[in-house]
């Protein structure tokens, strides 16, 4: 068993503890994706200038979401780590070097991040049409919104959250 499989094992047994955390992050990723989808939606891009306001609003909201999320993750990961000091001590006494313990925990949090990212993208894509339709209704526009998955939006979400997850 190497660091990777130990991390996988820990992740599986700790999923219950992390459920709420993962749920919050999934929703955040989904919301962020929907705003990105709006930004990159070809139909929206073609419509009139009214939507420029909506677009900039969407951008501001997504940035705010990101900032809140970064602080949320920062706080909760330090909280989780504090809860698990005893566990870290046991690993240290089992003769695992500090570097390796760090690696195990890093890999585990990457698993959590990937789960949230995948789940978030899935929900985001599922609800993106609903979101855009609601927006069209609100802005009294008469556009039919086709269901699209703009790859540029997906990549942007993945890059942004990839960086955040790695940084924390």
């Amino acid at each position: 068993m190497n660091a990777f499989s130990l991390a996988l094992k820990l992740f599986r047994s700790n999923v219950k503890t992390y459920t709420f955390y993962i749920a919050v992050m999934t929703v955040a990723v989904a919301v962020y994706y929907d705003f990105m989808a709006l930004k990159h939606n070809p139909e929206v891009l073609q419509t009139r200038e009214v939507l420029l306001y909506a677009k900039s609003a969407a951008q501001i909201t997504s940035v705010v979401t990101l900032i809140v999320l970064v602080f949320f993750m920062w706080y909760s990961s330090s909280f989780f780590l504090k809860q698990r000091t005893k566990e870290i001590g046991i690993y240290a006494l089992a003769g695992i070097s500090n570097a390796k313990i760090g690696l195990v925990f890093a890999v585990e949090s990457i698993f959590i991040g990937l789960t949230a990212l995948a789940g978030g993208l899935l929900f985001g894509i599922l609800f993106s049409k609903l979101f855009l339709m609601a927006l069209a209704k609100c802005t009294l526009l008469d556009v039919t919104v086709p269901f699209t998955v703009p790859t540029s939006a997906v990549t942007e979400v993945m890059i942004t959250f990839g960086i955040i997850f790695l940084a924390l």
Partner: protein
Amino acid sequence: METILSVRSLKKEYGSRGTRFAALHDVDLEVQKGEFLAVMGPSGSGKTTLLNLMSTIDQATAGEIYIDGRNLTRMKNGDLAKLRRNKIGFVFQDFNLLDNMTIMDNIALPLALNKANHKEILAAVEELAAFFGLTDQLHKYPYQLSGGQKQRAAVTRALITKPSVVFADEPTGALDTKASTELLDCLRGLKPKYGTTVIMVTHDAFCASFSDRVMFLKDGTLHARLDSSGSRKDFYQKILEMLAAMGGITNERL
């Protein structure tokens, strides 16, 4: 008999400049291979400090500690980790098992991280578990076990890497008399079977009477020693007398 662990003029101070307090001073100790040593003393006498120093958990202010001829006080972190992995086992009062792993995984943890072969790990775990009577408990989680079983699992984990020395800090502190007796009998049975040295800190004369030798600590120095004559009952009496003579803490037990 070869010496497995030796301590030379060990000193440990706590606190910062001005309020320095020596928890241990001038401690010299030799432990033979396969010996079951108990360290006793009133609270605050430095027994846990001594154990922490010998088991690499804490660092000495001055003096030297050798395990298997290697000087602990001059080791770097990486070497210490290796030493802990190969030479030392730990048992604590509150078991310190990982709640989200089965007993099997808990016991196998130190081996698993040594990158041992999967089959060898299984065989080693099953053999030791049988010795400690845990075969039926291997696939349960720690919360499904009694205190005595948990502590035996912890001892099994400490022994799985076939360490030279096992350090136990009040291993029976959370157990009742029956579970304590079972555990101590197991610890005593290690010597003929695996040749493991056990160093146990305790404040309980009953526990200490299972050992081969008892060292008494008082105010940070070694105060006296007692060797077992073979009969546990006599040894128990002698320990109680010694404690009483030291200004005993265990008089209430008489």
